[in-house]
């Protein structure tokens, strides 16, 4: 499905939450990344229909979902979407089964509903919890129920609003993989809002990066990582080293052995930090703090020679010219 945003904009009174945005989304798994208050959740809620844009047009393929000009505004329940909330949003007075079946009422027969709900529960590995109330489940289980509720309605798009931030880090990593594999097995797209850059890079086919209500870059994670649109993006995604000419060098492009067609820098080691599979070395190079990797620690205040291949430096300024 092709999701098109044209001049979508949202104001709360005099505050502009999301500035005029034009965007086309076709990838299956898209993340919206940004710090809190950057407007990413507002953008997601506008896609869901929970918040009405102040202006603009929104289309799913050729179907107009929202248009301020033509006064079109399709209700959230008619948009063919599912949504997973940060705080789960499971209705506490209903059983897990009823929570998942709620979106199917009046649409399917009782027998069909039962089959669909049990199938969804099986996908999230919670078949035995159907009769429980949400309050009796752990956080991770509740999040799975919320996911099951979303896939049960057979949506063309599932929206995740900081869906994993309420979980601890081990569970989060596990859920990441589960969500990815479930989305791949069902015929649905996903848009995932997060402030966690590793989550965003690992999960998505396409990243949308927002700052202060504006989309500042969108593209595949590799492209965003190697060719960030500006300083902010470069520092947000991965580790960034800067040369005196304000060129960007990622840590893995810095070598301790001479490289063909490379530039040599000299640095003074500040400290070495153990990361498990490698050490990250902090060194001062031309007045800048650089970080690079090595398999062994370096003594503080020792002098290192660093080799950088020319084609692995990326200039933000040349790009702008």
């Amino acid at each position, binding site marked *: 499905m092709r999701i098109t945003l044209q001049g979508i904009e949202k104001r709360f009174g005099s505050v502009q939450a999301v500035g005029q945005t034009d965007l086309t989304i076709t990838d299956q798994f898209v993340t919206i990344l940004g710090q809190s208050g950057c407007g990413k959740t507002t953008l997601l809620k506008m896609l869901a229909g929970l*918040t009405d844009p102040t202006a603009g047009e929104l289309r799913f393929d050729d179907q107009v979902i929202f248009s301020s000009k033509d006064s079109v505004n399709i209700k959230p*329940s008619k948009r063919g979407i*599912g949504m997973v909330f940060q705080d789960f*949003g499971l209705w*506490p*007075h209903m059983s897990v089964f009823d929570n998942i079946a709620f*979106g199917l009422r009046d649409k399917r027969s009782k027998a069909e509903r039962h089959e669909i709900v049990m199938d969804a529960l099986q996908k999230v590995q919670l078949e035995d919890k159907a009769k429980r109330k949400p309050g009796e489940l752990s956080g991770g289980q509740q999040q799975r129920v919320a996911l099951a509720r979303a896939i049960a309605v057979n949506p063309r798009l599932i929206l995740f609003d900081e869906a994993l931030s309420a979980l601890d880090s081990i569970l989060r990593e596990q859920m990441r993989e589960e969500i990815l594999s479930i989305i791949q097995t069902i015929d649905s797209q996903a848009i995932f809002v997060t402030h966690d850059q590793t989550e965003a890079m690992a999960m998505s086919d396409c990243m949308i990066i927002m700052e202060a209500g504006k989309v500042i870059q969108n593209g595949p994670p590799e492209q965003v990582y190697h060719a960030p649109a500006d300083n902010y993006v470069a520092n947000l995604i991965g580790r960034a080293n800067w040369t005196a000419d304000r060129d960007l060098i990622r840590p893995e492009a810095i070598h301790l052995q001479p490289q063909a067609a490379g530039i040599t820098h000299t640095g003074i080691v500040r400290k070495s930090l153990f990361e498990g599979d490698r050490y990250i070395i902090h060194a001062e190079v031309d007045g800048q703090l650089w970080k690079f990797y090595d398999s062994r620690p370096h003594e503080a205040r020792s002098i290192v020679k660093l080799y950088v291949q020319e084609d692995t430096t990326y200039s933000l300024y040349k790009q702008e010219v």
Partner: protein
Amino acid sequence: MYASKQLPFWMLFALLGLLAAAPLLAVLGYTFMEDGSLSFTAFSEALKNDRILTTMEHSFVLGLLVIFGTTIIALPLAIIRTKTQFANKHWLDIVFTIPFMTPPYIGSMGWMQFMQHNGYYESLFSTTAPASFFSLAGMVFIMSMHLYPFLYLMLRNTLVRINGSFQEAADIYGHSPLMNWIRIVLPLLLSTYAMASLLIFIKTLAEFGTPATFGKQIGFYVFTTEIHQYLSRWPVNISAATSLSLILLSVCMVIWYLQNIISRKYTYGIHSGRSGISANKQDSMSVRLFSWLFVSVVLLLSIGVPYFSIIATSLLQVRGDGLHWDNLTFSHYAELFSLHSEGFSALMNSLGFAFTAATIAAVIGLFTALSIKNAATKPQQLMDFTSMMPNIIPGIVFVVGLILFWNMSWLPATVYNTTWMPIVTYIVLFLPYAVQYTKGSLSQLHQSIHHSNAVYGTSNFIIFVRIWLPLLAQGILAGWIMTFIISMRELVGSLLILPPSVSTSATFIYSQFEQGDAGVGMAMAVITVLLTISFITIMNWLQRRALTHS
């Protein structure tokens, strides 16, 4: 070592027991003990007494009707405040608390003066006022207009919490707004409604102001007014008063217990966060019209009319002459503020009693809150319960108990018949506020504060002065203000326990109204309300400041 560490805790416990538990035991003892042995005669006789049975029936009917009345007002208001353009009008919540903060006897007097023969209704509309107002229906109306804010606030808070992701999930997965409302909002709202309406029932049973003024005029007697009658009118019948008190106490305990069961079983951890902006949709014309109309009518009836009457009466020279400019006078206020007048000394008494009571209650409340902590041990839970009892049990029951207890012949010393009696009474009745507000600000602090104190504190005294006092100051002050303003206006206790020839502003207003000389009384009412409003404004300001600072 152990004993000396625990000593302050048990001393505080003993003090609370003396203040709050002893009076209740005195009521029990008086009813069930005869010549040193257990006896049910007095109580069973009371249960056979027709007058007492009628009183019970009156109270229950009134309670149920007031639940109905407050629901009609509060439920639509709560919905309007969460689902329409009114969602952003936060100032409304402060306005809605005015009826609740108005002493019930003052509101009731306002309505009586408005609707009575030759009253303001007749002079405003130049027609005869409907005499049918002075009936049970009128009483239910007045009490509902006083109590609805309580139900409204509880319903609104629940609706606001549902408004977050619960509502959003319903919007996405549900098919019709009506079904969403029936299957999601209503069930989630129901437990709150059940709890709130039970509390409304208790509050109605415990209320004295409206029954003592309006109820008396229409001959509708309830628990509180009957207990007052038995104790204040000759021949004094203490045993009937204690039996009635005991029935009232039992009913309230049972309802409170039911309320607890509901809250334990059916209150879900509603942690639907980020409710944020719900009302960005434009309301339709009819919704807007209806909500404006509804809010205006409720405000007019619950604030406009009673306050109009009170202020008008306080300013009119001769009430029968009606509303004319040349009939206006400030003489009632002048009389109130002339030294040595009865009104002035009543006002000064009230201020003095309330100040002393609030200060002592704040100190006891602070130490109680610090001792209870998070109520982990059984003694702590018991202390919590003891300090909260006056919140559950109607004030008049405590007043009866206090009179009995402080009149016991074996006491080495007594406060009865001294000016300390009203002070002790106010402390007992309003201690829960002092404890609750301090407990509230204590619970907002992070647990690690206790740990930091343990690690870095050099002495208990320093911890108390440098950590607890500054951190809890805002809560202590809020509790102090609350205790002060409700002590200022307390009526039923003051009527029964004041030493001879001492009056307070509340008893002054009441006796002036009884004697039909309402002008000075109503001037006093206006002063009382102005004091209340200014103190609440200070409290709100303090709370807002504390919020922005943290």
